[in-house]
Structures are given as structure tokens and as C-alpha cells.
């Protein structure tokens, strides 16, 4: 038990990691669209706090810029834009029924274990105190993927996609104290463009098939 050897700030990073994972589970279980968007914003906020803490602990101040990008994009812009779209598409009250939700939860738990197992060789190498968070961020990525697979509503899939991005950012922040600045900027730009394109797509899907349920996107098959 060397946990005590860590300074409090790093313990807080670990706690934030656990909370980010928790929000991932909440996203997976949440069926109301507006609450889903809010939970996503909270995940972004936790990521922002974690980034700021890492920036302070490691003394790499360029991480503060990355934290600012997270705050602007993940906490404000994307949730705001999604909310606006949800209001404009008038699907605020939509409740999505997720089939066999307990099974999905167990699956998510299994994914966490899997990521732990996958990341095991890495944690034995790293000198950084935050190395354990690699498994957590991989789990967040995989749970985002699970969410995309299990959800039928386009908005929920987008949130799953964006929460995968959160997992990636968290991996970069905690495992390596952030990526080089130019990469961070590029990734943020891609996320921004993706968020805008998703909005465009919502309207296209809505106009094309009359609903945002991607189950209706079933015309193209591997073989006919």
C-alpha cells in the first residue's frame, strides 16, 4: 500500500479518474436525452479539473491551454449545441428504452476488467504516479464504444462518440502529461468539426427517414 506516499493532488487525480469512469457508466444507463447531455457535460468538467490538476502537479503549463480547450468544447460548446439541436428537433422528452440494461452494465464492468488486463504491462513500466489511469481511460473509450453499439438514437450515439474522445484526452493527459501542443490543437479542431457535422447529420437523418432512430437506417446490407 503505497497510496499514502502520493501527494494529495495526485490522489485527487486518481479520484477524478474514478469519477470519470463513473460518469461513463451513468451515460450508458441514462435514457433521457437532456439528462444524458448534462451528464456528458459533467464528464467534460471532470476531465477539465483533472487536466488542470495534472498541469499544476507536473508544471507543464501548456496543459492549461488543453484544459481550456476541454472546458470550451466539452463542457460548453458541444453540450450547448446538442441541447440546441434537441430543442430544435423537438426530441427533448424522448426516452430511449435500452434493452437488457443490466446485461449492458455487466458488459461495461467486464470491459473495465478487460482494460485493466490490457494495461497491466504498461503500469509496470511507468514512472508517473498517474500510470494507473491508462486502464481507466481505455475503459472510458471502450464504454463509449459500447454505448454507440447499444443505443439506437443518433444523439445518444454522438454522445458515446464524444465520450470516447474524452477517454482519449484523459489518456493523453494522465499517461503522458498531454500531447505536443500542435497535436492537441489538431485534435480539438477535429472534434469541433465533428460536432458541427453531427448537427448537420441530425437534420439530414431527420429529413431523410423522418426520425432520429438509426434502426431505420437499414437499407444497405452486405449481401442482397
Amino acid at each position, binding site marked *: 500500500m503505497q497510496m499514502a506516499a502520493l501527494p494529495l493532488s495526485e490522489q485527487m487525480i486518481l479520484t477524478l479518474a474514478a469519477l470519470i469512469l463513473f460518469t461513463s457508466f451513468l451515460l450508458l444507463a441514462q435514457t433521457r436525452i437532456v439528462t444524458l447531455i448534462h451528464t456528458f457535460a459533467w464528464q467534460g468538467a471532470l476531465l477539465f479539473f483533472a487536466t488542470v490538476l495534472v498541469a499544476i502537479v507536473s508544471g507543464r503549463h501548456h496543459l492549461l491551454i488543453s484544459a481550456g480547450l476541454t472546458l470550451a468544447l466539452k463542457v460548453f460548446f458541444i453540450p450547448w449545441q446538442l441541447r440546441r439541436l434537441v430543442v430544435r428537433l423537438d426530441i427533448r422528452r424522448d426516452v430511449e428504452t435500452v434493452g437488457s440494461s443490466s446485461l449492458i452494465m455487466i458488459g461495461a464492468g467486464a470491459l473495465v476488467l478487460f482494460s485493466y488486463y490490457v494495461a497491466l504491462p504498461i503500469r509496470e513500466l511507468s514512472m508517473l504516479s498517474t500510470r494507473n489511469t491508462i486502464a481507466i481511460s481505455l475503459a472510458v*473509450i471502450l464504454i463509449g464504444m459500447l454505448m454507440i453499439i447499444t443505443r439506437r438514437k443518433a444523439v445518444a450515439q454522438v454522445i458515446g462518440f464524444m465520450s470516447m474522445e474524452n477517454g482519449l484526452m484523459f489518456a493523453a493527459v494522465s499517461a503522458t502529461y498531454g500531447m505536443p501542443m500542435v497535436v492537441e490543437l489538431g485534435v480539438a479542431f477535429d472534434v469541433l468539426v465533428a460536432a458541427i457535422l453531427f448537427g448537420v447529420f441530425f437534420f439530414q437523418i431527420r429529413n*431523410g427517414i423522418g426520425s432520429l432512430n438509426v434502426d431505420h437506417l437499414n437499407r444497405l446490407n452486405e449481401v442482397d
Partner: protein
Amino acid sequence: MSALYLTLVLPLFGTLLLSLIGHWRSAGAINLAICTATFVTSLLLAIDVFNQGPLLSPDKMFYVDAFNVYLILLNAFVGMTTAVFSGPYMAHELEIGRVDDQRMRLYYSMYQGFLLTMLVALSTNNLGLLWVAVEGATLATVLLVSLYRTPESIEAGWKYFMICGVGIAQALFGTVLIYFAAERVLPGSEESLLWSVLHQHATELEPAVLTLAFVFLLVGYGTKIGLVPLHNWLPDAHSEGPTPMSAILSGLLLNVALYAVVRFKMLIDPALGSNLAGNMMMGFGLLSFVVASLLLHRQRDVKRMFSYSSIEHMGLMTFAFGIGGPLATFGALLHMIVHSLTKSAIFITVGHAAHVAGTQSIDKIRGLIRTQPAVGWCFLLGTVAIAGFPPFGVFTSEFLLFTATIKSWPWLVIPLLCSLGIAFAGLFRHVQPMVFGEPPAGQVAVKANMWPVILHLLLVLWLGIAIPGVLASWIDQATTMVVGKGLL
């Protein structure tokens, strides 16, 4: 050096310009002019690199060596010839009302944007930027796939966006892991994601991390290559988007994704000291080759059929890069060229054929050779070339690949040859009635410029009969870069 910057600035300029004036009648010509200029500068760049060796920009952002410069040249070339086709094609689409002015602007601007991201992805020295550019290519093309706004095209666009987005996210995780491994060797350095730096320190990187990273990178970029089982987006995106888009997706994007995988393999092989990465690539490649050749039979849409053929050939190249060794790598590099040229030629022809018949359905396209002999013959010859008949270049490269396979993995030749036969049967079963059948009444020829197709096919023929010494030594340089020793 200025040639490199010009090569990148021109498409950027084109993106911005055409987003404003893309609906002009002359937009197609402007697009072609910019593409031609890009091709000329990339040719200058290639000559530079050929004469002076690898080129590292002063700020270390870009790195061009024999391996990527030939892909840059290929990209610019296919971009240019497809632009020749795309002008009249899109004008026709505008005429029959499938697109409007706004979408024309989007189309032309994103055509250039796509070329830009491809060129950045190829020339960048930063592995993170490589990811950003490949993801950018998805973003640039995703709205083009759904350009026609039919339910099918929207479905294809959404699938493309989701599957590639999710896949490419895995690649970013792999990149983070590479950075993580690099940080241990070069702590605190801003340069530890630069390929030129990493390659020097490749043997010091931690094998356990790199193995894990490569799994994620292969899954991530493999989604973009269209490797089975991550290929679902590819036939949809190819069949529903505008045909010039299918041509450059098949001819360029898949190559660039494969290029990314091979770059990472070059990093990982020295660190691991084993062919683990290669074995994974061989597995995925072989699976894609076999599955795609089977699925080819069951298609009703001609563009879908040829996109399965793309999956098949990408699988073969992945397999060949996986085998490693100079012979297989030389063959794979050659195959990249001939496949790009042939496949984009086929898609251009298919675009004309679909205009002639008014549909993309295999059952309804009939008698091309009687209605419009030029289209019919090009269609037939293109199919012959892609199926790997001598004397076309595809035969040469496949021959090299199979020779390499017999040398190192003799048993694997059996599934390869079987699949090749199955794919051949599938292609001809569908193509023969389309070319030779009885044309439906009232089918008339359309205005078609077949010169790009003929040029491509002639090049492929030339590469099949005699590879020019310059090109051979050039590909050999690239082979040396990838596997450490050359073939010649």
C-alpha cells in the same frame, strides 16, 4: 523545400477558393487547374527527393522520403485525372437536378480539402498530425458521401462517420501509447512524436507498450483501410457517394491508411525484434482478401462490387507488407500504384456507365459496348487489369507477391490463389453481361471524356510490360526504407 510547401498550400487555397465559387460553371476547370498545379509541384518535390535523398523541413514538421514521396506523387496524379472526370460528371449531376449550387460548392471545396488532408497525412513528420489529417479526411468526405441526401446515402454517410470515427479513435489511443513509450526514452522532449526522431530511437522503445500500441493502431487505421471485419462502411460509402469521390476514396484514402500502418510497423519491428506486427497484418490481410472475394459475388450494385474488390486488394497489400522482406514489400509498393491507377480508372468508367444506363444496378446495365464502345472497352479492360491478367501491372505485382509468399509461407498460397480465382469469377460473371449484353431500347451514349481512363490503363500496361528503371530504383529505395534492404 518550397515545392513541398506549394504542394500543401495549393489544395488549401483551393479549398477556400472553391468554397466560395464552387457553383460557378467554370468551377470544374478551376478544380482541375489547381489539381494540375499540385501535381506539377509534387513532381518537382519528387525530383528533389530523388536527387537529394530524404527531406526534413527546418521546423521538423514535414519529412519526405522515397517511401512517401511516391505516394504523394500518386495522390496528386490520381487527384488530377479524377478532376478531369469530375468536372463534366458533376455538371451532369447538376443538370439532372441531383445536386444544387450549395452542394456543388461543398463538393468542390471538400474535394480539395480531402486532397489537402491526404497530402498532409503523407508528408507530416508528426505521428499525431498524421492522425489529425486522417481523421480530417473522414470529416472532409463524410458530407460528400451523403451529398445526394437519399435515405441510402445518409445511411452510408452516418455509417462512414460512426465506424471510421470509432475506429480512428483507437488509432489515437495507439498514438498516445507510442508517445508514452517515447517519453520514457526522451523525457520532456517536444519532439518525441516526430517520426524522424522516433525512428532513430526505435530500438530503445519499450516492446510491451509498442505491441499494445500497434494492436490499437492496426485496428484504428485498419478500419480506414477497410480490413475485414471493420470494412462495413467501405462499400456503402463508395456506392452512395458521387463517383469521383469513390475513385479518390478507393485510390487514395485506403493507400494513405495503409501507409500509416506501414510507418508504424517500421517503428515497431526494430523495437520488437520479431515479426509480430507483420503476423497481425498478415492475418487481417488474408481474412479481408478471402472474405471480400466471396462477398463480391453477392452484389447488385456495380460500385459496391468494385469496392469489395478494393477491400480484396487492400487485404492483399496488408498481407504482403505483413510478410515483410524486400520481395514482398517491393511487390506491395508496386501494387499500391497499379491498384490506385486501375481502381480509379474503373470507378471513372463505372460513373460513365451509370450515366449511360441511368442506374448503378448490375442487373440493369447492359450492352455498354454497343451503346458506347469507348466506355464498354475501358470497362472490360479495366476489369481485366484489376482481376490480375497479364500483361497489366496488377499481374506483375501479384506475381511478385505470390512468389514472396511461396518463399516464406508456402501453404498460404492455396487460400490466396483460390480467392483470386473466386474474385475473378465474381467480377466476370457480373461484368460480362454489362459489357456484351443486349442494350435496352433507347439507351444512348453520353458525353464522356475517356482520356484519364486510357491514360491510367496505359500506365498500368506499361508497368506490367516494363517497369522503367527510374521507378524501379525509386520503389527499391522505398523498400530499403521499409524493410532495411533492397531487392535490386
